[in-house]
Each structure stands twice: as C-alpha cells, then as structure tokens.
C-alpha cells in the first residue's frame, strides 16, 4: 500500500531541492507502469505503453513530447478521465494516501478529481462551457466538493478570479467565456482548478493556444501559485522552452513511452537520448545569430497503430544500427547517475562523444 503515511514535511514555498523526489520521503504521486489503450475501428491504439514516474510535493515535472506521444493521455489518466472516455487503463497511480487511484471506485475518485488533483487544459475557449457564466462554472466546481451556499461559493469564485489576476473580478464573474480574452479565459480555468485547493495541478499545454505575449504571463502565474500554495505541478508540453524555467525534472516521451527522465538541468546540459538532442536542437535561441539554422528531427512520429519494432525511435534516429530494429531498449539509469534514466541502445561512451560533437558544432556555428 503506497502513500498511506504521506508526510507533510515539505514546506510550501521553500526552495526546491532537486533531489527530494528521490529521497526517503513518500512521493505525492507515484505512477507505475501506466498503460492506456483505446480500441478503435482501425485496431488497438496503445497510447501510453508502460510509463513510471514519481513526483514530490511542491515539485514540478515537465512531460515533453510531440503530439501523439501519449503525454496528454498519460496526464488525463491520472484523474481517471481516460476511463470515462472508454480507454483500457492498467498500472498503478498512488496519490497522497489514497492508495491506487486506478483501483478506486468512481465516487471516491470523483472526490479526488477537481479537489486534490486539478487540471488545466490546452484551449480555454473550448474547455469552458460556452453557455454558462465563468462564475457559475467556478461555483459549480467549488460546490462539487464542499457543502457551502451559492453566495459563499460566489464570493470564493470572485476571490479566486482576483487571485489569478483577472481585473474587476466582481464584474468578470458574470461574463461568458466568449466575452473574455484568451489569456483571461486561461486565468479563469486556472481559478477553477484552484477551487479545491489542489495538492497537484496538471497543466496540459496550458499556453499552446495563447498569444505569445500572454504565454509568459500564464507561466509566471502558474509558477507563483505553485510557490504560494506548495502545489506539485505536472506541466505537459511539446515545448522544451516552456519547461526550461519551471520544471525540476523532465520526462521526455516518445511513442507512448518515457525515453529519457532526468533533473531539468541535466536534460539541457547532458542529454542522453538522440530524440532529446533533436528536441533541443529545434529550439530557437535569442542569443544565437539570426542565420543559425534550426535542425528539425527528420520524419514524423510513428502511427500508434503501426509502431516500429525494436527501438521506436530508430527509423528517425541518425545513429541507429541494424540491431536497433530488433532490440527494444528499456529505461535504465545512466552509469554513475542514478537519477538520470534513458532508454537508448547506443553505448554510453558513444552517446557522450556524439553529444559533445553536436554541442561543439552548434557553438561553432553560433560563433561564425
């Protein structure tokens, strides 16, 4: 039984120790061998294929991958939302003394959902109900978990809107979603997510649908709220740039699996997986010269209906060897680095050499 004696020692707002998640303390969230599949007319889609991770209280995990990598499905499954959509889910999700969320009957899971674990979605316009006022939708979320009067819930909703930085919250509370700007809509979504004082907030591409200028504001807001409330945060994104500032740890997903998992600074400094290299090399930098070419990853992610044999990345990997099409790599610690895991068949020394070459090449290019 996991998580029954979850400690409260992690102080909200304290500076985040990078290794705490690996310490003796019971993690807030422990996902073990999570598998999610959908049966479609074209066959079985294994959207998430055995991922495991842990998250300590108040920490941030960035889950990064291309569309179709299974990162959103993995996040939704933590709240049991893929179950409602008819997926087959297996594995274990231990959360803050609730035992295995996947084994929890629907009513008990509902008490956790939106209350202790909350979620913010990608597109706030389509994620808010178009026919109800923003305030009414927040009030509904509050009253789903607490026995309080409508007027008290409304006062709380105004407080929450104020907290997330919506101007004139007592007026905006009566706005319909389409009357708000994109950034304000996402703030309202965040306010709704906070209505239950969650210990864990899952943000699925929270800035992707927003204007670039607003994206940074929303990330800053999430960061501030996390600090003030000591929430753990799972930040799902396709953009390594988004998690660079915020995440303590980063898990890189590819074709339904985690292919690399490490503390954030190691992902940026000494990444081990060729796919992570590709992601890093396709981020534009402000300080680099304008002529610097971004290096895209060749090809596209495999169809979940026809996954390649062996290493799933080998058809797109510039360093793959014939043998990689037969052997399926497992996620294992890098020698000497217990908290840096990678699923790659290349020899560790070869990987280190390749990365330093790539790095030298890009510094050289930016120098000229």
């Amino acid at each position, binding site marked *: 039984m996991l998580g029954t004696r979850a400690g409260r020692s992690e102080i909200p707002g304290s500076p985040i120790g990078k290794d705490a998640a690996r310490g003796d303390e019971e993690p807030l969230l422990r996902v073990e061998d999570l598998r999610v599949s959908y049966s479609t007319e074209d066959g079985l889609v294994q959207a998430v294929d055995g991922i495991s991770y842990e998250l300590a209280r108040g920490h941030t995990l960035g889950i990064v991958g291309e569309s179709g990598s299974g990162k959103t499905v993995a996040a939704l499954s933590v709240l049991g939302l893929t179950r*409602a959509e008819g997926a087959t889910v297996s594995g274990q999700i231990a959360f803050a003394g609730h035992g295995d969320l996947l084994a929890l009957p629907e009513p008990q899971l509902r008490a956790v959902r939106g209350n202790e674990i909350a979620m913010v979605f990608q597109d706030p316009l389509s994620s808010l*109900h178009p026919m109800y006022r923003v305030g009414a939708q927040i009030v509904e979320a509050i009253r789903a978990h607490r026995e309080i009067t409508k007027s008290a819930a409304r006062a709380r909703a105004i407080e929450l809107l104020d907290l997330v930085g919506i101007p004139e919250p007592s007026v905006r509370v009566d706005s319909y979603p389409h009357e708000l700007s994109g950034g304000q809509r996402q703030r309202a979504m965040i306010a709704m997510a906070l209505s239950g004082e969650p210990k864990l907030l899952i943000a699925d591409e929270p800035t992707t649908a927003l204007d670039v200028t607003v994206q940074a504001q929303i990330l800053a807001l999430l960061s501030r709220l996390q600090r003030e409330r000591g929430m753990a945060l799972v930040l799902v994104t396709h953009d390594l740039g988004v998690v660079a500032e915020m995440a303590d740890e980063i898990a890189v997903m590819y074709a339904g699996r985690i292919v690399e998992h490490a503390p954030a600074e190691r992902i940026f400094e000494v990444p081990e997986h060729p796919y992570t290299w590709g992601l890093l090399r396709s981020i534009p930098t402000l300080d680099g010269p304008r002529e610097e070419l971004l290096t895209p990853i060749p090809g596209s992610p495999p169809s979940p209906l026809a996954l390649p044999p062996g290493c799933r990345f080998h058809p797109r990997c510039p360093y793959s060897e014939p043998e990689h099409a037969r052997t399926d790599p497992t996620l294992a610690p890098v020698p000497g680095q217990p908290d840096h895991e990678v699923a790659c068949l290349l020899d560790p020394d070869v990987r280190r050499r390749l990365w330093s070459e790539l790095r030298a090449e890009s510094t050289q290019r930016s120098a000229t």
Partner: protein
Amino acid sequence: MTGYVIRRLLWGVLLLILVSALTFVLFRILPTADPARLRAGHSANPKVIAEIRANLGLNKPLLTQFWLYMKGLFLHFDLGYSYYSGASVKSLIFGRLPATLSLTIGSAIIWMAIGLPIGIFSALRRRSRTDRSAMGVALLFISAPEYWLGLIVLYLFAADIGQVKVFPGSGSYAGVTADPGKWLTSLILPWLVLAAGFAAVYARLMRGSLIETMGEDYIRTARAKGLPERRVVMHHGVRAAITPILTIFALDVGVLLGGAVLIETVFDIPGIGRLNYDAITHADFPIIQGTVLLAALFIIVANIAVDIAYAYLDPRVRYS
C-alpha cells in the same frame, strides 16, 4: 435586441403581405374552376351565374379585386365567405382552431417526452444493443406513413371497429369545454400516431446532437471538476445539445398548427387541416386561402420566436 425584435416583426408583416398576394395570384388568376358556376349549382342558367359573379365581385378588374381583398384582409381580418356554405371564413377558422391546437400541443408534449429521453439514452450507450434496437424502431416509425399508422391503430384499438375496443374511434372528437373527458380519450390515439413519427425523428436528432456534444472539451472539464456523471450529462451535455433541437421543435409546431391534414382526416377531427381538406374537395377558394394564410402566419411567427429564443438559449448569439 429590442431593435432586432422590431425589425424581425416588420419583416414578418412584409412576408405575410407577400404570401397574401401570392395566394391571391394562385387562386384568382391561374385557371381553376369558376367559383360562380360552382356556387350556382348544376342546372343554373347563365343569368344566375352572372348575378352570382357580380355579387362575389368577380366581374371587377383584377387589380380592384386585389385591392379590396388586401384591404379587407389587413384592416378587418376579412377572409371572405365560403363559396360553398356562405359562412364567414374567419369564424370557420376560429371554430376549428381549438381542435388543431389540442392535437398539436398534446402530441408535441408526447413526442418530446418520449423522443428526447430515448435519444439521450441511445447517445450514452452508443452502439450498444439498446441503442441499435431503439434506432431501428425509430427508423420504422419515421418510414411509416402516418395515415397508414392511423388506420392500423384504429383497426386495433378503436371502440367501433377495433379488435381490442379501448379508445374512441374516428369522428368522436368533442371540444374540451363541451366534454373534457371525451376530449381527452378521443385525442389519445391521434396524439400517439402523430407523435410516433416525430418522437422517432427527435430521438435520432437528440442522439446525434448529444454524441457530438459529449466529445467536446468542456465535457472533459466538467468531469475533471469531479462532477457526478449524471450532472455532466444533463447539465453540460444535454444543455448544449438540446439548443438546436428546440429550434427545429418550434418550426415543427408552427407547421402543425397550420393543420395536420392527414391525421385530422383519418381521425375525422374538426381542425384546420380537415377544414382545408374539405375546402379543396369543394374548390372553396376563400377557405383554402384562409387556411394557407393561417399556416403562413404560424410558420412566420414560429421562425421569429426561434430567432429570439436562440439569443436566450445560447449566450454567444447576440443580435444587434
């Protein structure tokens, strides 16, 4: 919003004037049987016919006839007099309206009460056996002609000719004020027969609309809040899915208020549809004209009602 409503009402009036002019053209100018001759009877001599023609104003120039017709219509709601019985069309229509209203409203309540829950149920259990059989039966009722269905239920359940004598048969309609009990029992079969086809259509509409809505992102948000599934479906899914259906509903009711000709004929209910049917068999133009205008009025009013209601049902729609 007020400006929009006023503009819509003015357009409605204009449309009504156009429809009136069109009915005039259809019934006076296009070659049809001569009303004066119809009125005069079989062995009338030309002198009598000419006299009747003068009385009806049919010898005046067409434009004059049109002017008198429009003036009477819009200033006095004067729809003329039946060629056949000589009764005023206005009083005939008002006399028949309660039966049509009873039939339409009762049936509408029944088809919504049956069709919508079936549609919701089918949408939530999509591709299950229940869904498939419900939609199969629905298809059967959509395809069955209502006069045929009417005859079948009369054959099965009517008190006079039925195999199981349960409900009053054809021609047993009584006004609600005259005999409420008889009014109710005589309408049960026509209500059900008229509702059957519509219930089937609405079950399919509701199913399709709800299936689409349940795939929306805001349904996922509602679930993520920790709401019970029942509330997710009713408060978030059905609320959004039902909006387009209510607009179709208003239009259907508008059309039916203009007279359900087949049902009223099969069950011999003295409503607008029956009045219309009889008038057609007698080439009684003033009545046909009156019922056509009434039907147009109901459809125009239903359309305006739908547009105004939509602004309240869907806050994204705001007219200016």
